[in-house]
């Protein structure tokens, strides 16, 4: 009896002590955590899957959709804690740096050096793909968020030239309002309102103010009169939105523009997919402009892939192939044509892209040259998540009438400070 108990105890101890070593996975398979589960994004990723399959690498899909990746990040945390991370994960902005700081990410520098990532990928994006001089992420694309999407039919009715600055935007929207068209189709979720706020700050104070206030969180800039103006303009924009916007998904707002119920929507370039899906043609049925007054500047959101360390073993063959493939021109082109974004590499030929895509790529190059490629704070490329969400809190409360302009202006720096 006693012996038996001893052996049971020993077995239990052995079980508890068992530390899963690097899970034995075939060298030629990759498990990828991502939140691209539908439509164009999944189709884009399928290109990568196929590319890898051709090289004999099996793709194990681990999608967790929802909340702009927050579901996937929760899953990642759980799996990381359990000591069972996937091979690679889609990741955005500051989260990459946080994971790098935690020492969880594999070093991609050898691959990057061999494939000249350094020269091809814009510095602004590299800031989020490197940590302490090492490459830790492979950027896939650049989404630009300071776009407006306009219904051609509604614009024709309005009969005014395309807006190029704040005042002309207001004129256009006033005209639309008088014609009974909803001037601004807006989705009612904090991230959408914040995305618009990025553009409003840009158009109000230019790249300089945006950089200082929304990225560097400079106290002086945050409390500057220009920021007050930005909040005033946010409140002004609110008056052009129909009353039923709260909670509305972005694609429903897009569909208002598609149907001509609404004049325009402020949204990232992924909105294009909705138009294409509704069989609308750029230039003929809908128009895409930079947010008036932000021409020459690109606020971006770049999807990247990170690879996880598994013990002290070097990156295995499958992961190496995947990281390499992501940064090939052919994949970047094929993927982004489908996804509607611009390639993260600026040396990819634009031949396969449509009009809006070509424009996006040209704008990107231009912004890189002018050093006006800026991370979108609303998309997690300006500030860490805690601050990003603190900003959301104030912006959404202002836009939903829970705060006045003055209150929001006063609250904004406070909320940011509290989240630091």
């Amino acid at each position, binding site marked *: 009896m006693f012996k038996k108990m001893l052996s049971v105890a020993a077995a239990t101890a052995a079980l508890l002590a068992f530390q899963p070593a690097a899970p034995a996975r075939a060298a030629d398979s990759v498990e990828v955590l991502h*939140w691209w589960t*539908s*439509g164009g994004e999944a189709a884009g990723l399928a290109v990568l899957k196929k590319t890898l399959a051709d090289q004999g690498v099996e793709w194990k*899909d*681990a999608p967790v959709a929802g909340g702009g990746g927050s*579901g996937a990040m*929760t899953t990642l945390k759980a799996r990381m804690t359990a000591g*069972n991370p996937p091979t690679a994960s889609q990741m955005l902005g500051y989260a990459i740096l946080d994971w790098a700081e935690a020492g969880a990410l594999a070093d991609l520098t050898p691959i990057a050096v061999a494939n000249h990532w350094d020269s091809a990928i814009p510095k602004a994006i590299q800031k989020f793909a490197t940590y302490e001089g090492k490459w830790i992420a492979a950027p896939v694309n650049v989404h630009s968020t300071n776009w407006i999407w306009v219904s051609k039919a509604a614009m024709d009715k309005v009969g005014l030239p395309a807006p190029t600055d704040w005042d002309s935007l207001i004129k256009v929207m006033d005209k639309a309002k008088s014609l009974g068209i909803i001037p601004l189709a807006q989705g009612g979720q904090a991230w959408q309102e914040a995305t618009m706020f990025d553009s409003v700050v840009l158009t109000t104070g230019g790249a300089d103010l945006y950089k200082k206030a929304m990225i560097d969180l400079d106290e002086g800039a945050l409390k500057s009169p220009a920021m007050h103006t930005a909040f005033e303009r946010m409140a002004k924009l609110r008056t052009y939105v129909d009353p039923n916007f709260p909670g509305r998904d972005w694609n429903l707002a897009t569909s208002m523009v598609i149907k001509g119920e609404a004049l325009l929507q402020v949204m990232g370039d*992924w909105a294009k997919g909705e138009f294409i899906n509704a069989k609308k043609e750029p230039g003929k049925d809908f128009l895409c402009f930079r947010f008036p007054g932000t021409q020459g500047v690109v606020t971006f959101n770049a999807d990247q892939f990170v690879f996880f360390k598994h013990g002290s073993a070097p990156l295995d063959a499958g992961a190496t192939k995947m990281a390499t493939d992501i940064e090939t021109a052919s994949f970047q082109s094929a993927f982004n044509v489908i*996804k509607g974004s611009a390639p993260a590499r600026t040396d990819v030929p634009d031949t396969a892209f449509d009009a809006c895509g070509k424009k996006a790529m040209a704008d990107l190059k231009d912004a890189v040259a002018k050093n006006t490629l800026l991370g979108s704070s609303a998309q997690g490329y300006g500030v860490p998540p805690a601050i990003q969400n603190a900003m959301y809190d104030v912006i959404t409360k202002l836009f939903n009438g829970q705060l006045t302009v003055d209150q929001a202006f006063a609250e904004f720096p406070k909320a940011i400070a509290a989240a630091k």
Partner: protein
Amino acid sequence: MSGRVDSGMAGGSVVTKIVIYGLLLFFALLFLTPLFVMLVTSFKSLDEIRDGNMLALPQNFTIEPWLKAWGTACIGLTCGGIKGYFGNSIEMVVPAVTISTLLGALNGYVLTKWRFPGHKMVFALMLFACFIPFQAVLIPVARVLGLVGLSGTVGGLIVVHVIYGLGFTTLFFRNYYEAFPSELVRAAMIDGAGFWQIFWRILLPASGPIIIVTVIFQFTNIWNDFLFGSSFTASESVPMTVALNNLVNTSTGVKEYNVDMAAAIIAALPTLFVYVVAGRYFVRGLMAGAVKG
């Protein structure tokens, strides 16, 4: 035992009847509206959804969304619809429900028929476990699963569901067995039955109603769980809800509402089936003990 007031209604006045049926039907319609919306939407084309009234019947009736949801919709990069995930969910739900119900029954049995000093404290501690928010335990659970090598497996998910279901299953069975005559247990003891024989031969065969309640409760909760399912499974073994979530949630893609709705209804069919078929026994089971304080 129903028909309580009809003697009081003195032949059942027509007005009272109308009020009763009116109220019941009113609420029934109210309760059915979301299901109705989901159903009609699932038979519409996307254009019709975009343009039309959500309550309107489909003008161009199509079962395309259902076929797509079942067999061809893309969930992540695998475009096989949600049919493949039924297996995963069932593989997880059946053992989890069985084990948690059985353990609940055993716990209830011990806590009522084999009491020991401190049994009430033990029960109270187990009951309070029902109230723990799952978000708060996600990280440590992941750690423990990782330590015992169950991370990312269906087994791990089953273990987690069993653990966090124990509070309720124990509560249900304890309340049921509390009312179960102890004389039967005594009789069995004199007849020479031991701990296990009494449980298997006497109590468990008499536990039909409460087993139904517990199974329904656990089945619904576990089938519909998303948080644990998405956190503790790896790629191929994700349960239905995670697949459904991947299908309906999109960050920068097009929402196919008709397919979403069809998929949601398909995903809910097992639980709907359980409620509709076992509903009568559900009330009977609750009556038999679960509602006692």
